[in-house]
């Protein structure tokens, strides 16, 4: 169930090997016209992507998930922190070095309807992706073969049926597959998938997710899976990280995070997720008993201390002033942590398990 040791024969890659690391990643967007104000979109985010593992990033809308992905893809210059590819710090903006980076780290955009150029065929999109990264093969035949192979990887077969279509002639799921194929054309080591299924219909969603899971297995990709559908994170990700208002608040293996959420925000999130089983007479979790669970905070002037404290039912004096560091959550062994003062005392067990 966790961290499958399924290294394919002949390959030297070690599953679990670190590919991409972010350390203290920070991004502030200036707002207004030249004013000193900034949006604290991402603050001090640390994460690690490993070969053959899917890391989910969940959190409410506007919490900075996409920004993290774009920072990792080097699409935005970062305000602070470090990004390391195989342990080596990289900062690239454009040109050859950017291409070299893009060859190893690829991003899939949130919206398959918007991320393909409506004026170009699928062939154009994929050919460009192959050419840029020198994977187009020898001559016409080589290219043709590469294209077929690529579409095969994302189960769009036969390739001829799709190659000369325009994006608008494909269904959402097919488009999302093309977007994934484009990312795979670079033969990357890390794939940053920004809400790859949120725009898709229920029946198509599953197909794309299964495909991602399969690719991870087969190609030993390191995948960052961004979503706010926690249930899908539970299903497809090995690890899950929770973001709130630009900060990481909890992380650990998916099963622990979703089944035994530690941070009050995570608990709110999980409690809020629709759950058909509730009607079967279950009591509402205590997080939801309050009249109003509050509004997300302003990121221009984020709350001091723990950013969740104005909405937190368990807020203490300390939360107001001091930023909580990461604390290990005691009862689960596999690196489950939370940035919450509740776990500062060694004996915080009684709060730890509310669900």
């Amino acid at each position, binding site marked *: 169930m966790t961290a499958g040791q399924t290294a394919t024969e002949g390959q030297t890659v070690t599953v679990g090997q670190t590919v991409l690391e972010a350390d203290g990643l920070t991004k502030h967007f200036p707002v*207004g*016209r*030249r*004013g000193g104000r900034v949006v604290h979109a991402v603050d001090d985010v640390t994460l690690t992507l490993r070969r053959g593992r899917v890391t989910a990033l969940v959190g409410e809308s506007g919490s900075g998930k996409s920004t993290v992905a774009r920072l990792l893809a080097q699409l935005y210059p970062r305000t602070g922190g470090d990004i390391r590819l195989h342990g080596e710090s990289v900062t690239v903006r454009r040109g050859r070095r950017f291409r070299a980076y893009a060859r190893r780290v690829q991003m899939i955009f949130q919206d398959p309807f918007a991320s393909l150029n409506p004026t170009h065929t699928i062939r154009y999109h994929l050919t460009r992706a192959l050419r840029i990264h020198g994977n187009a093969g020898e001559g016409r035949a080589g290219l043709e073969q590469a294209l077929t192979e690529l579409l095969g990887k994302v189960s769009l077969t036969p390739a001829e049926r799709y190659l000369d279509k325009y994006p608008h002639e494909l269904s959402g799921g097919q488009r999302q597959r093309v977007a994934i194929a484009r990312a795979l054309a670079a033969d990357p080591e890390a794939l940053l998938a920004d809400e790859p299924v949120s725009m898709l219909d229920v029946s198509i969603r599953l197909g794309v997710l299964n495909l991602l899971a399969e690719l991870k297995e087969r190609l030993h990709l390191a995948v960052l899976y961004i979503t706010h559908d926690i249930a899908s994170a539970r299903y497809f990700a090995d690890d899950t990280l929770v973001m709130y208002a630009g900060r990481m608040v909890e992380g650990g293996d998916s099963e622990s995070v979703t089944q035994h959420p530690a941070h009050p925000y995570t608990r709110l999130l999980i409690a809020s997720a629709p759950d058909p089983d509730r009607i079967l007479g279950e009591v509402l979790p205590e997080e939801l008993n309050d009249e109003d669970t509050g509004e997300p905070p302003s990121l221009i002037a984020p709350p001091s201390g723990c950013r969740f404290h104005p909405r937190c039912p368990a807020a203490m004096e300390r939360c107001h002033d001091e930023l909580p560091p990461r604390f290990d959550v005691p009862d689960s062994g596999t690196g489950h942590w939370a940035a919450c003062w509740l776990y500062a005392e060694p004996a915080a067990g009684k709060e730890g398990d509310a669900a």
Partner: protein
Amino acid sequence: MRYVLQRLAFYLFTAWAAITINFFVPRLVPGDPVQALIAKNQGQIDTRSMHSLYVLFGLDKKQGLWDQYTAYLAQLSHGDLGVSFANFPTPVLDILKSSLPWTVGLAFCALLISFTTGTLLGVLMGWWRGSRLDSVLPVTTFISSIPPFWVGALMIAVLVAVGSSFPIGQGYDPGLVPGWDGAFIGSVVQHSLLPAAMLVVTSMSGWILSMRNMMVTVGSEDYITVAHAKGLRERRVMFSYAARNALLPNVSGFALAFGQIVGATFLVEIVFSYPGIGYQTMQAVGATDFPLLQGIFLVTTMFVLVANLLADVAYLFLDPRTRKEG
């Protein structure tokens, strides 16, 4: 506030750039006002008079272009636009004062009429699209493709041919003394009818088209459906919801058109011999009358800038979304 300051800086820069261009461009023209004056009077003024004119215009003293430019800027800063050559020694300001009201009166009224009726028609056509109203569209398109001066000349010819006593030139009846009396105003209105009609007719289709297209676009917005769902009266949905939102691009178009008033009317003024600023421009170009030309350029530039400023302000009022900057 910062937004306002920034706009202001932009306007100042544009004004300066335009003034500078307006200063140098007329001076590229070869020849001088004295020769132009003689040309205008083909044979009526003797070559002998030339010297007196050079002295009169102060052109007998040579001055470098740069000195002229700085002198001009200094003059401008005092609100002095100089003295016209062709109408020596009348100050440019006086000429502008006497011709501007005609253009602004004519063109502005025409613009207003064309804008309001065009926009209204566009609203109706966009709202009741596909109705018989829509058949107006190709007709107005055709009309707007015709050069306005051509329509004007034809109009005049037809009126003269049928022996109509409708006035077809000038700003008012020759016998009248300008003043705020009924006879004069009536005459002014009567005299402006034809040129205004022509301006209106040839410019309306643009308004109709853009408004109609915007209405169609806005018409499929969700909030329109919501307005219907709310059971609001149709007229309220049409005007307060659809037209109100669709109006924005037309407003900036209006500002732009307002700025182009002089350019747009100038042929009409020539064809209808209307004593406005367009007519004056033509005379000034013919007479190489730099001071007057500069004055006219300055005025038109100011028009555009003021119009743009108004459009900005109107946008602030019409579209609350733009208000968040500031």
